[in-house]
Structure formats: structure tokens, C-alpha cells
């Protein structure tokens, strides 16, 4: 009974701390998603692989999306002709390198500012490294999901002023609601992500409508994930004996591995994961907290299904492997040399 009480307290405190940030993240991303013209953005991106990777990872500042929203945006970027380095840099860094997540991390780790800085630096470093590896490949299509590859093949290099023709709905999988000729709404992805082209060109009234739909949809999906994540975090802390958590959390190596595994399983959204990590902050090493905060947004369970809509499974496997190794190496250095 005491355990249930403690568990519930932990669960609700996590929820209360995290919910405002989730709401803000969803609001902000929905607003920007509908008011930023990504075609112009792509046209402005550098073609140099390294610069492109850095630029791509910084695009998150304009699309503050967590890892649940970044795959569709990356897919759109690729399909509209963005260089691979930009798209991959964005895919990996955007969930972390964006104002909402940085602010949330700062709120949670105010007394350990290096966690905030290193989270951003490590995420950027990993994203840029992997994006550079991607840019070695001149033809991306063998790495991509067949659908996206086909789409890529039919899309010309972007022409900033004119909208790209929408791909036929018949070529896309999913459940659709066909409305007036030419308009359709995909039912199994958030409204805004299924838009055939940038919604910036649409009339304001429609954009606002789409924005509201997107907010509700994302809030429902991500809210559910958050509640589940909070429940897991609370359960882990109550059910697993404290000695086990302590012994796991204090080894410089085991703590990193444990937190990476946890990040993968919990799949918690990057706007709120810092509060989740904070609940472990007192017993786990700084490096392991960083591992959780860096690895989680790039790789987690629920992300796989989304990533499969973009890449072939072998590509995903390599991305996961490299992200995991880089995270482990960097946070191990933190644990063994810095703190």
C-alpha cells in the first residue's frame, strides 16, 4: 500500500511537471509547421555535406518537434529534394536541438548546467557524424524505403516559388478519407504530417483549422505515450529494489548501459524526457543521464515503426548501431574523465 502510494505520487509528479512542456511543444510545433515554408528553407540549405549536416541539425530551431514528429518532417524534406546530410542531420538532432527541449532540459537540470550543454553538443556531434556518413552515398534510393525512393525519383530539384505536384494518393499506403476531388485526409497519421505539400500556401482559415486538428491529434498520441512513460518510470522506481537501481546507477559503465536501455524501452518524448531523467538524477551518474537524454530522442521503440516509413531496415540498423556507439563513447568519456 505504501509502495502504491509512493508510486502514484511519483507518477503524478512526473505528469504535472512534464505536461505543460508537452502542451507547449505540441502547440509550438503545430503553429510553426503550418507557417514555415519548408521549400524556401531547403533552397537556402548549403550543399556541402558537413555544413549541410550542421544546418540540418539546427533546423530543429524552426520545427520544434520531438522524435514523434521529426520522421515525417524529415521524409518531407527528402522528398522535396533536400540533401541527405540536411535530412539526416535534422532527423537525428531536431528532437533535441530545439528551443522547447533545451528549455525543458534547463528547467529540469538547472543545478547541473553541463547536462544541458552536453546534451545539445553530443546530439549535434552524433547527428553531424552520421549525416556525413550518409552524404558519402551519392544515390540515396538504395537506403530508403521503396515508397520514398520512388517518390524521390519522381521529384525534381525544388523550385522555391511553385508548389510541387502532390503525389498520387494511390501510391501511398494508409487509410484515407477522400473529400472533394483532389483533397484527402489520411486517417492514420497526424493531420499535418499527411499534408501533400506545405500548408503555408493554404488560406489562413484552413491553416488554423489544420493547426487545431494537429494539436488535438498530437496531444492525444503524445499524451498517451507520456502517461505510459510516467507509469513505467514510477513503477521501476517502486517495484525494482532500490539496491539494484543503486548498484546499476553507480557504476560508470553499467549506469550508461542501463539508461540507454531504459531510453529505448520507455520511448518518452524528448520535450519531457528531462523530467523523467531528473527522477534518476540523484542516484545515476551524469554520463548515464546524458546517455538517456541523447540516445532516447534518436532511437526508441516507437520510433522504429516511423523510421521504417523512411529507411530500409538495414539502414536503420546501422543508424542505431552508430548512434549507440557514439553515445556510449561520449558519455563514457564524461563518466571516466570529467565527473
Amino acid at each position, binding site marked *: 500500500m505504501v509502495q502504491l502510494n509512493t508510486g502514484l505520487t511519483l507518477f503524478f509528479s512526473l505528469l504535472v511537471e512534464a505536461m505543460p512542456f508537452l502542451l507547449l511543444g505540441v502547440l509550438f510545433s503545430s503553429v510553426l509547421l503550418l507557417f514555415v515554408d519548408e521549400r524556401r528553407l531547403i533552397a537556402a540549405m548549403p550543399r556541402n555535406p558537413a555544413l549541410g549536416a550542421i544546418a540540418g541539425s539546427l533546423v530543429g530551431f524552426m520545427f520544434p518537434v520531438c522524435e514523434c514528429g521529426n520522421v515525417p518532417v524529415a521524409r518531407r524534406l527528402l522528398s522535396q529534394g533536400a540533401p541527405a546530410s540536411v535530412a539526416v542531420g535534422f532527423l537525428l538532432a531536431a528532437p533535441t536541438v530545439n528551443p522547447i527541449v533545451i528549455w525543458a532540459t534547463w528547467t529540469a537540470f538547472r543545478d547541473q548546467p553541463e547536462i544541458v550543454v552536453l546534451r545539445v553538443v553530443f546530439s549535434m556531434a552524433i547527428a553531424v557524424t552520421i549525416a556525413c*556518413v550518409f552524404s558519402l552515398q551519392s544515390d540515396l534510393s538504395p537506403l530508403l524505403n521503396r515508397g520514398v525512393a520512388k517518390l524521390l525519383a519522381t521529384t525534381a530539384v525544388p523550385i522555391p516559388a511553385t508548389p510541387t505536384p502532390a503525389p498520387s494518393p494511390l501510391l501511398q499506403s494508409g487509410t484515407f478519407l477522400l473529400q472533394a476531388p483532389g483533397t484527402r485526409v489520411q486517417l492514420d497519421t497526424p493531420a499535418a504530417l499527411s499534408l501533400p505539400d506545405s500548408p503555408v500556401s493554404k488560406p489562413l482559415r484552413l491553416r488554423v483549422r489544420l493547426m487545431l486538428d494537429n494539436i488535438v491529434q498530437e496531444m492525444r498520441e503524445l499524451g498517451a505515450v507520456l502517461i505510459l512513460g510516467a507509469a513505467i518510470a514510477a513503477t521501476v522506481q517502486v517495484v525494482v529494489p532500490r539496491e539494484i537501481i543503486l548498484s546499476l546507477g553507480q557504476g560508470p*559503465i553499467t549506469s550508461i548501459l542501463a539508461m540507454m536501455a531504459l531510453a529505448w524501452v520507455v520511448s518518452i518524448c524528448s520535450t519531457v524526457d528531462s523530467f523523467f531523467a531528473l527522477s534518476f538524477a540523484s542516484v545515476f551518474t551524469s554520463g548515464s543521464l546524458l546517455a538517456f537524454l541523447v540516445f532516447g530522442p534518436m532511437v526508441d521503440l516507437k520510433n522504429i515503426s516511423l523510421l521504417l516509413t523512411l529507411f530500409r531496415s538495414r539502414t536503420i540498423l*546501422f543508424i542505431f548501431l552508430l548512434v549507440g556507439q557514439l553515445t556510449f563513447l561520449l558519455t563514457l568519456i564524461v563518466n*571516466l574523465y570529467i565527473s
Partner: protein
Amino acid sequence: MLGQRFYRAAATLALVLAGAILVVLLSGDHASARVRQFSWNEHQIGVEDSAFAITFSRPMNTASVEDNLTIDPPLSGRVSWAGRRMAYTLDVPAAYGRAYTVRLDEAQDLTTQGNKLQPFLAQFRTRDRAFAYIGDTGEEENRLVLYNLTRDRRDILTPPDWVVMDFKPYPLGDRILFAALTASEATNSRLDQQIYAVTTGITPNPPQEAFGRLGDVPAANPGPAGEITPILDSQDYQNLGFDISADGHTLVVQRVNRNDPADFGPWIVRDDEEPRPLAAEPGGDFLIAPDSQSLILLQGQGTAILPLTPPEDDSADVVQPLDFLSDYGRVFDMSRDGTSAAMVNYNQNNPDERFTQSLFFVTNQGEEKELLRTDGSFLDAQFDPTNRLLYCLVTDLDEDSEEYQEQPFLTAVNVREGTVWDLLALPPQPNLHMSLAPDGLALLLDQQTRLDMAETDDPENAELSSQMWLLPLFSSREARLAGTPSPTDPERLPMTGVQPIWLP
């Protein structure tokens, strides 16, 4: 499988990374635990700072930290841990006017090999022991004087031709609020006093993170001693008594309209706000509660607790009391945590005790405990900072005397156990003030006649001037920790004046 350039490059990188990880793993642990933050580092603390926190860079072996942590001079306290953060809560407030050194030379972290902590050494200070009084002779006459015992330094804070009537220090001692008549007004009545604030020249340097502090940290440099700011004039309203809230942001001044004596009551003065009357039933003595949110005001036969900020939707003309204690006609002091108060019951409901007064300990849990009863009167009562003891100035009716005479004495009561210590008998006199040091170690008393048991070389002169006495309350550290007052002989201070009040 590795047909594409990407896969080949990725596989190569993965191998390189695996090698790098191996190298780092084999190189071993080079980091050592250290203290990341010490909340009182190089700060000046006061009685409101009851605990410090030390944050470590790694989870620590708590026993090794607790065993090796030293504070010099010693400060007893309790240790509690929240992960990598250790809090040390003092048992009794640290003595004022001293520098303390915190040292942690050896401690291990929680890793399997128990890495050593980088030695840690830090210092903090307590605020200076200082008090203010209204001077009585020579150039100090009628002026507000600040005496710093720690540095043995005396500053006169107000201009020579002003007559200071009353004063109260701000919470961190950087300013003093006072009521005074300027030279031209001095011939008029006391009711013309205006209210000012004066800087003391003390620059508080409190820790950023205080466990019990209310309100903000004050401006970094309040300026040199003696800078005077007018707070309230006496043009339309006369100023009577005043009090400062514990957070230093709210003043309450009892005022009366010069043209309409019925327009009488407390006014609220806040930083950057126009002074405004608190629409309450008129009352007498008052006190701002330690939460800085409510006013304890004597109304009629009882004591009302009024909100300092009336609720927005309150449509009533008069602020409704949050509570009304009908039995108590006076409140002397409230404990620092705001949970209890020392109140006087005039025993009007008990025909047998009609001519006595009782001092009660009243808590917000509804507990009402009679601590003392006298056939004389209670002059003052102040809580010790640990909230265990209550120091009282009481008078007894001197029945042997032919005329009606009250004999004052100083006593201490343990509010929980009811144990009473009679500390000092004082000669009969009309005005008597006491002030308990913020660290609870000494009392200041003023006296217009000679103390019975004190030896003065020149009794005649002593009769004419006002002496001030310092009474140390504990003779040993053990007595202090146990909370059993054991006063030594009072020391006569080298200056003369009235109403000595310790700076917080």
C-alpha cells in the same frame, strides 16, 4: 550486404568506434568526485538560514562524508541526503559575528573502487553582532545610533537636529525604519513624527538559496550608512506605530486623520505602491505575522487576524478577519515559523482572577497553554530562534511596598514543558525594553535607574542617564544546545541610550 558506400563507411566507422570504446574502457576511471556546490560558500548567513546544502558531482558514500565533514567552530546539526545532495540542518542558529570553515578532506564516492573525493574547503560568515539604539547624551542625543559589536564601531545614522522616536530594523539589517521629528517639529507633539528609512552601511550577502527565507535578496549595495529615504509624511495623517514584514516588502503604519479622529487604522505601505489604508475595524497594537501576509490586530477585547491583501472579490466595505481570538488582548511575538504566538489573556471572564494577567502559548493547531500568571503585568515576550523558549519581561505587584509598585523581572519559559527560569530581577522603572539577539545568545535591556545587583561607581549619574545592559544567556555550548538558560552577570555597555534593538 555492404554493396553501398554508405554501408561500407558505416561499418568502418562502427569498427573504429568499437576500438575507441575499448581504449577508453581500458584506460580506467580518471575522474574523482568533487563538491559541485556549497550553498553558503562565501556568503553571510543569518538566523533565517537554518540549513546548507552540499551537492556532489557523483553519488557519494554517505557514511564517509558524514564521518569526515568538519565545521570549525563546531555547529551541531542533522544530515539528510537526497541523492547527490546533502543537507545539513543546524540544531541551533549559528552564533553571529564569526567566520566558519567547512572542510571535507576525505570521502569516497559510491563506485566499486571507492574513488577519493577532491578535498573541499569553504568558508561562510554569520552577520555581525550589531544593535541600534536612540542616543541619550552628547552628540548622540535623540539620534539613531548603530553599534557594531563585532567590529567595535559606532555610527550615528540620523542628522543632529532630528528627534528619533521609534525604530525597527529591516530583515537583513541593511536599513532601519524610524519615526522622527525634524528640528522645527520637535516642539510639536509626538504625533507629528514622519517615517523614514536609513541605510546602515551593511551590505547583506545572503545565500541565494535559503530554506526558510521569505522574499527576495536585497539590492547588492544599499549605499553608505546614513542615507535617508522618506517613507510617509504626517501632513494629513498622524503616524502612530509601525511594523515591518518578515520579507521586508510590506510596512504597516497606524495612522489617524488630523481632521477626523474617527478615520483611524492601519495603512499598508509596499515597495512601489501608493500607501493605502487597510479597510478594517479600528484597532490598537498590531504585529505583522511571520508569513508577511496577515496582520495581528488588537480589536476591542480580542485579537483579529486580518489579511494584508484582501481578496479581490471582497465586496464588503470592511476587511473580514481570517480569525478572531476573543480571549486575548495582546500579542507580543510569534514564533519564526508562524505556528505559535505568545498572547496575553486579561482574565476578564474569570471573576476570581480578575486582577491578574496570564501569558498564553497559542498554536495554529488550537493548542492554548497558560505559561505564566501575574498580579502585575506582562511587558514583553520574545521567542528564542529555536522556538523552544520564551523570554518574558514581567512585573509582580510589590505587596510589601506602601504605595502601588510593580517589580519587574526577566524570566524564561520552555513553551513545551512549562519549565520556568527566573533570570534577572530589575529595579522598578516606568519604561523597560528588551531585545533578544537573533542568534538567541544574549539579551539587551535598557534601564533608566541603577540595577540592583550591578555595581556602579557613580549612582547619581546612573540615575540621570539611561544605561544599556547586555545579558549573555548561556554559559556553555551544552546549555545552549539543551535550551536551558544559564545567564552570567549582565555587562553594562559603554554608551548610554534607550531602546536597544538587535539588528536581525
